[in-house]
C-alpha cells in the first residue's frame, strides 16, 4: 500500500513507533486484541468520524509501523479521551494508547500535530497562564453567533452578569473563577519541573517562550527555583 507519508523515512517512523511501545504504560494498555469491536461500539467519536479504537490497538499489535505513523498524524485527534473503550474484555485501554501516541506526536512536534492543535494555542495560553481554560470575556457576539442574540447583551454588561452569580470567586471576567496567587505559583512550578511546559516547545516556540517568561518571573518573585528542587 502506498504510504500517505512517503516523505518521512522508515527510520523516523520506526523511532516514533518505539517511543510509543517502550512507554512505561504500554504493556498494561495493550494485552492482546480479540478484534471484537466492543471499543468501537462504545466510542462516541466512532459514530461521527472515520475513527476506530480497535484499529489503533490492532495496528500496534501487528507492529504496523506505517499505519501507526498515519494514525499518530491523523486518527488520534478524533478521540475525545472519554475512555468508554475501557469496556474491553481483555483489559486493553485503546484511549490510553492514544494518550501515549498523542504525547509522542506532541513531543516530536509533528507538522500535523501543530495543525491539529493550532486552534488551541489560545486555550493552552489561557490554562497555563491563568489556571482556567476559558474566560467569560471570550464570549463575544461574533465569536458565538450560534448562541443567539442574547450573547451581545451578556457581553455588553459582562461584569454585572458575573456579579449576579452567587459564589464570590466567580465575579471575574478575564478568568473563569478567581485563582489564588499561591495556586498559580504552584501550577507554574509543577509545569516547569515536570517538563509539561517543554512539551509545547516543539509545537509553538513563540507561545512556549512567552509562557516560560511569565512563569519564570512569577517564580523568581516568590523565591521558587525555576530549575526545580533537584
Amino acid at each position, binding site marked *: *500500500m502506498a504510504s500517505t507519508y512517503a516523505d518521512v523515512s522508515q527510520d523516523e517512523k520506526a523511532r516514533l513507533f518505539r517511543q510509543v511501545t517502550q512507554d512505561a504504560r504500554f504493556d498494561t494498555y495493550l*494485552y*492482546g486484541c480479540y*478484534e471484537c469491536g466492543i471499543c468501537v461500539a462504545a466510542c462516541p467519536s466512532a459514530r461521527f468520524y472515520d475513527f476506530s479504537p*480497535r*484499529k489503533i490497538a*490492532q495496528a500496534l*499489535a*501487528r507492529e504496523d509501523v506505517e499505519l501507526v505513523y498515519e494514525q499518530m498524524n491523523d486518527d488520534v485527534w478524533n478521540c475525545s479521551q472519554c475512555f468508554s473503550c475501557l469496556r474491553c474484555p*481483555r483489559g486493553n485501554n485503546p484511549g490510553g494508547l492514544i494518550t501515549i501516541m498523542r504525547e509522542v506526536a506532541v513531543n516530536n512536534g509533528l507538522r500535523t500535530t501543530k495543525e491539529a492543535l493550532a486552534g488551541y494555542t489560545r486555550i493552552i495560553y489561557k490554562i497555563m497562564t491563568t489556571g482556567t481554560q476559558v474566560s467569560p470575556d471570550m464570549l463575544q457576539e461574533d465569536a458565538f453567533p450560534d448562541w443567539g442574540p442574547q450573547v451581545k447583551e451578556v457581553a455588553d454588561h459582562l461584569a454585572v452578569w458575573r456579579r449576579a452569580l452567587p459564589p464570590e470567586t466567580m465575579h471575574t471576567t478575564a478568568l473563569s473563577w478567581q485563582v489564588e496567587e499561591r495556586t498559580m505559583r504552584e501550577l507554574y512550578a509543577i509545569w516547569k519541573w515536570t517538563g509539561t511546559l517543554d512539551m509545547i516547545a516543539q509545537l509553538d516556540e513563540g507561545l512556549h517562550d512567552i509562557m516560560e517568561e511569565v512563569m519564570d518571573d512569577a517564580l523568581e518573585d516568590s523565591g521558587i527555583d525555576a530549575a526545580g528542587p533537584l
Partner: protein
Amino acid sequence: MSAAERVLVVGGGPGGLEAARGAADLGAEVLLVEAKAELGGTPWEAYATLTPHLKPTRELMAEVVGQVASHPRVDVRTDTRVVASEGEAGHFQVTLEQGGARTVESVGAVIVATGFQHFDPGRETQMYGYYEYDDVITLVDAERMMQQGKLVRPSTGAPPKSVAFIQCVGSRDRRIGNQYCSKVCCGIASKQSIEVKHLVPDAKVFIFYIDMRMYGFWEDQLYWKAQEEHKVNYIRGIVTEVIKKGDQLLIKGEDTTMGRPVEVLMDLVILSVGMEPSAGTLEMGRIFQIPREPHGFLATVGEPLDTVSTPVAGVFVAGAAAGPKDLEDTVSMGGAAAMRAVSFLRRKASQSA
C-alpha cells in the same frame, strides 16, 4: 473363559487405556487389542507434549500405560488386529490376527477406541502445496521435530525466522466434505506457537484463523498466553494459497478485521490439520456393524447424555472414533464406556440367572 464378564477394548490410545483400566478395576476381565507394537495411541506416537500444559506426553501417559500393561485382569495383545466378529451382545466370537495367526476369543461386550487420523492435505486437492514444498508441514510434522527438541525449516535445517499456522485445514469445509470443527487444532496450534517461541525466540509467529475456538480454560491457558506473553499474531482470515518465492513461501490471504489483503513471506508454514475417522475406526464400524453418523464417525445413541452407547447392543465407543474429541473428552468417555460395558454385562447376567 466365560464371555459373561469379559470386555474387548479395541485400541490402546488414551480412550482405550482408560476403558481397559476402568473395566478391569471394576472386576471384569479385559482383552485389550492394539494394532501397533506399543500402547499409547496417537499422542504417544506423534505428540511431543500434551495440550494445554505443554508437559511431555510420555511422562504424562507413563502411569496409565504401566498400570494397564501390568494389570492382572488386562490381557494386552499388541501387533494384533480384530478381523471378524460373530454373535451378539453377551456372546461375541471375535477373530484376532497377529503375525498371520488367527485366534477366536469370546467376549460379552466391546469398547471401540480406535480414534482418528489427521486430515491428509493432499486428499482432495493439493492444499497449500504440502506435497510440493518442504517447508509446508502439518501440526504432526512439527510435533515430531519437537520430540527431538528442535524446530527447523526442512529445506535448510535452519531455524525459521517467520512461522505461519493455517487453521481449519480439512475442517469446516463443505468442499472437502468435512463440515465439522475438529475441536482441538486451535488449542494445539496455540500450544505449538508457544513452543516455537521457546525454541526460536526471535521468530515471528502468525496464526491465521476463521474463529479461535478455545473453550473453557484454554482461553487464558493457551490463547491469551500465546498472544500476550509470546506476542503471537492472530489474524482473522484464511490463507488461500501458498506460493514459492525465492527460498521462502509467499502466503496470500485477507486480514479481515483490518479490511485489507495480506501477502507475507514465511520461512515455515504449519497446517492445522483436523480429524477424520481412522482406518481402524472405519474397519471396526464394518466388523461390528456400527452405523456411521452423518460426518462419518461411529454413531452413538442418547446424545447428549449418553456419549458412549452405539446403536448395537453391547458395543460402546470411546474417544475420537465417535467424532472430534480432546483428551479430556476421550478419557472421560473411556471411563464411561467401561462403566456401561461392565454394568451391561452384569445386568444381562442377573436377568438370565
